[in-house]
């Protein structure tokens, strides 16, 4: 049944945004933890650990996020295990975001010259102390723009979770379109909401970068 697009639909869209935000938060938190581990594996002094990290990135970057969502949500039911959509989403997004964040952060760590590690080692600092006091503080500033860039991607990629039943912003837009038949207006509103989420992030990123630069 087709009805008029009204203010209440806009409110529904805004309400659906909370799932977009919740999914993003989970994905970024889980992905951050996994990413940190991956980045550390990739810069470790032990070759097998570096290979392990490399293999992980290779596999995850080479497979679609959609496939992970399907595996976790539908795949386990074959063994009689019911996976809630939240668990499936958290696992899939953490695996996916972890690979990309891990690569971004590895790059930032490796951008710090080897001589900085050497200078730390020569003063008697151990590996983790070199990381913590010398390498990470310098890598952090480099990491902000690409990390925020990925976060913005992540916000938009949460729409994929619609396939396992999440009615987040994009899915809500589809549903609204189906009942009002006003795709142009609806998707414009959807796009505006995404923009309202992403734009402040890029601004914060810029300010953060500037602040860390002044404080070195």
């Amino acid at each position: 049944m087709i009805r008029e697009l009204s203010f209440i639909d806009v409110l529904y869209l805004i309400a659906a945004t909370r799932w977009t935000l919740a999914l993003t938060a989970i994905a970024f938190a889980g992905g951050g933890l996994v990413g940190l581990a991956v980045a550390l594996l990739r810069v470790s002094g032990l070759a097998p650990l570096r290979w392990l990290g490399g293999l992980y990135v290779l596999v995850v970057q080479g497979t679609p996020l959609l496939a992970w969502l399907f595996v976790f949500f539908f795949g386990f039911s074959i063994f009689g295990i019911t996976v809630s959509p939240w668990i499936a989403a958290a696992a899939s997004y953490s695996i996916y975001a972890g690979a990309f964040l891990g690569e971004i952060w590895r790059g930032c760590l490796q951008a710090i010259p080897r001589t900085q590690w050497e200078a730390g080692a020569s003063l008697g600092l151990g590996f983790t102390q070199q990381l913590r006091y010398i390498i990470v503080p310098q890598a952090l500033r480099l990491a902000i723009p690409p990390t925020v860039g990925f976060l913005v991607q992540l916000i938009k990629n949460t729409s994929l979770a619609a396939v396992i039943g999440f009615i987040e912003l994009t899915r809500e837009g589809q549903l609204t379109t189906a009942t009002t038949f006003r795709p142009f207006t609806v998707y414009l509103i959807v796009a505006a909401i995404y923009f309202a989420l992403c734009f402040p992030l890029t601004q914060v990123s810029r300010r953060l970068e500037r602040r860390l630069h002044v404080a070195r």
Partner: protein
Amino acid sequence: MSLVELLDVVKRYGRHTVLNGVSLSVEKGEIIAIIGRSGSGKSTLLRCVNGLEPIHGGTVSFDGTVVNDPATDLRKLRQHVGIVFQSFNLFPHLSVEKNITLAPKVVKRVPPAEARQLAEAVLRKVGLAEKIDAYPDQLSGGQQQRVAIARSLAMSPQVMLFDEITSALDPELVGEVLKVLEEMARDGMTMMLVTHEIGFARKVADRVVFMHEGRIWEEGPAAATLAQPRTPELETFLNAVLH
């Protein structure tokens, strides 16, 4: 027993042998200048002493501890062996004070107030007391290198290694850094320095070691060895750098 002792040290990069059986002992308080063409292995030799370069044969020992023994705690060893690099390698995100106090605080657990005093003391030694709150990029090359020396001194090492520390400096800044070295020499610091400053080596070093093709080609008392080289290789080298 010698403070630093290298015995038949072999080091390779792939199929290229950089150190081909190097033996050298350094006594406490001695100042050794290591000279030679680039690629002769002199920097590598220095970096073996604090275990920055793993070696493939022979032994390196410091104060009785075998550096190349996998069981040796290199972190502990490096507290006693200071090194200063050609490219300074200061930490750009930290102030001069924090550059100096990082290792004392983190490694030796020196309390913050005491660490600040320590920084002031070592900075006075290199004549940069007023730069304590500056950042590395606000300093000239010569000043940065003096801060790097101070940073090393703050760990009160028993031996200092200097890896071509004036090679990256503008000529007019070399003097201020060499002056600091001379003062350290007067204080009785044991030093091994890789250098191209032959005049300085003659003046300050007790012994000169000439490296050639991964070996110690010639060594002896600084003045005599530099005035009357026994091998044609050293003679050629000295002629090349002095003219």
